[in-house]
């Protein structure tokens, strides 16, 4: 019996798979970036300026900057989720690209690792685009904001891994709707993207403190304001723990699906 629970096998052979995805992305780069950032930008500008005219400041930040940092994290979350579900599913199931790859010296473990890194890469791309808009609008206060890029990568690893779990279980594209309605939408509303978590009742605050997106936002907001975040390592540890555990689960489920 193939042991699907064995530890991940690491080799550098994953890089050509990541490069393959990059090449496809390059063919449609502009459309792809616009697709990834259109939503968050619209939210940021519409709500930021609209509601921002009633609430000039939120926790010592311009409201548009407040929501902007929320949108940076949100876009990292959504971009990696889309990539790990719809796009990965197309490659795995519809096009059988993974089947072709595992007939070469590249193993399924390498393929999944490459896809995981790729989901996070896509997150960094959209985070970069949104951050540039925030800076262009004049809301960046220090060079510390550059650290939001590696944060975007970590958020991408976290949600990319969740998405790859869904991918391994999905009978078809419709299945991914569950992830949006049961995971991402509550995450978006409870993690302090639009208003501070402290405004919510204690019970909801307790829920929020377990959500990875909340920890991402707790890092991003101070960075944009030019401050080192409080409890930085705790937030990083929570995000990293979610990412690593979810990736292992995704790997086991993917092996179960394809290596039989």
């Amino acid at each position, binding site marked *: *019996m*193939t*042991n699907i629970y064995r530890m991940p096998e690491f080799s550098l*052979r994953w890089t*050509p*798979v990541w*490069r*393959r995805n990059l*090449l*496809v992305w390059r*063919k449609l780069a502009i459309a792809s970036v616009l697709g990834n950032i259109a939503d968050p930008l619209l939210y940021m500008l519409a709500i930021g300026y609209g509601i921002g005219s009633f609430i000039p400041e939120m926790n010592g930040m311009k409201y548009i900057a407040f929501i902007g940092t929320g949108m940076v994290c949100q876009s990292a979350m959504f971009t990696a989720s889309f990539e790990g579900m719809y796009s990965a599913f197309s490659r795995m199931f519809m*096009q*059988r*690209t993974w*089947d*072709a*790859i*595992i*007939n*070469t*010296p*590249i*193993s*399924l473990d390498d393929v999944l690792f490459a896809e995981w890194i790729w989901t996070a890469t896509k997150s960094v791309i959209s985070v970069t685009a949104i951050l540039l808009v925030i800076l262009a609008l004049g809301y960046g206060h220090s060079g510390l904001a550059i650290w939001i890029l590696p944060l975007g990568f970590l958020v991408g690893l976290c949600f990319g891994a969740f998405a790859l779990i869904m991918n391994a279980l999905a009978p078809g594209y419709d299945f991914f709707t569950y992830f949006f309605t049961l995971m991402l939408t509550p995450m978006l509303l409870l993690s302090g993207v639009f208003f501070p978590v402290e405004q919510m009742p204690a019970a909801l605050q307790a829920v929020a403190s377990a959500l990875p997106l909340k920890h991402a936002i707790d890092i991003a907001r101070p960075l944009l304001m030019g401050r080192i975040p409080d409890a930085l390592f705790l937030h990083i540890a929570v995000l990293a723990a979610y990412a690593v555990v979810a990736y292992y689960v995704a790997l086991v489920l993917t092996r179960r699906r394809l*290596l*039989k």
Partner: protein
Amino acid sequence: MSDAVLKVDGLVKRYGGTPVVDGLSFAIERGECFGLLGPNGAGKTTTLRCCLGLIDPDGGTIEMVGLPVPLAARQARIRVGVVPQMDNLDPDFTARENLIIYGRYFGIAKAELDRRIPKLLDFAGLQSKEHASIRTLSGGMKRRLTLARALINDPELLILDEPTTGLDPQARHLIWDGLRQLLNQGKTILLTTHFMDEAERLATRLAVIDHGKLIASDEPRALIAQHVEPEVVEVYGDEARAWGETHGRGLADRIEITGETAFCYARDPQPLLKTLLGQSGVRYLHRPANLEDLFIKLTGRELRD
């Protein structure tokens, strides 16, 4: 050490307790085209997946290009090319890009790929399609490109899983020509198919498997001579069944009647042909025994799946 490029010994693979491959053994010598025949569900694809190290066997040993599988499967796959049953070319790329990307999976350097790719496109008859998107290629072109892709690493062993399923006769002949060229160059081929004409044309040696077990293995002609009477008379029509019961059964060495056809197998067909001359309500075909007769005899007529 033998010169076997692939050696499978006592292979066992079970799913939920049911053996799909059940003690299968065979060896493929360098330079031969070995055909693995069997009805759907006989265990052909499972055997191939075990050989490639994609699934771990429950028993037995595999040695591919001299390396133990699954232990050194990754190293072994560097020297093997695979044409899968279902097309899985990368639809986002052109023909040339598909070869480049696939070459990178093997870690082949850019300069070496630039040298190999024109030759492979030429081999596949796709020079003019070098920059064409995969979506614009016909089914036959896609198969040829898949074959070219499987050769990007200049493999010692080429594994083809039903390479011409779904192709029209012209496209099949082109694939066969390509495979014969490769055999002439000294490549070793493992082919699974359920097209008997394909196996008969290409394979130097065959193994017929069913229910995961090897039933017979030899050169195609020898297998037929060994298991099937040399001549066949097929009789069709409204009266075929009645004719078969009254005349055929007595005169043929072996007869099978299904629907409105009687298959008569005989060493000497003359008495059968004589009674058919004056028989109304039937048409008949007299031919030498072929691989299909062998296959049906060994694996039965009932439908699989």
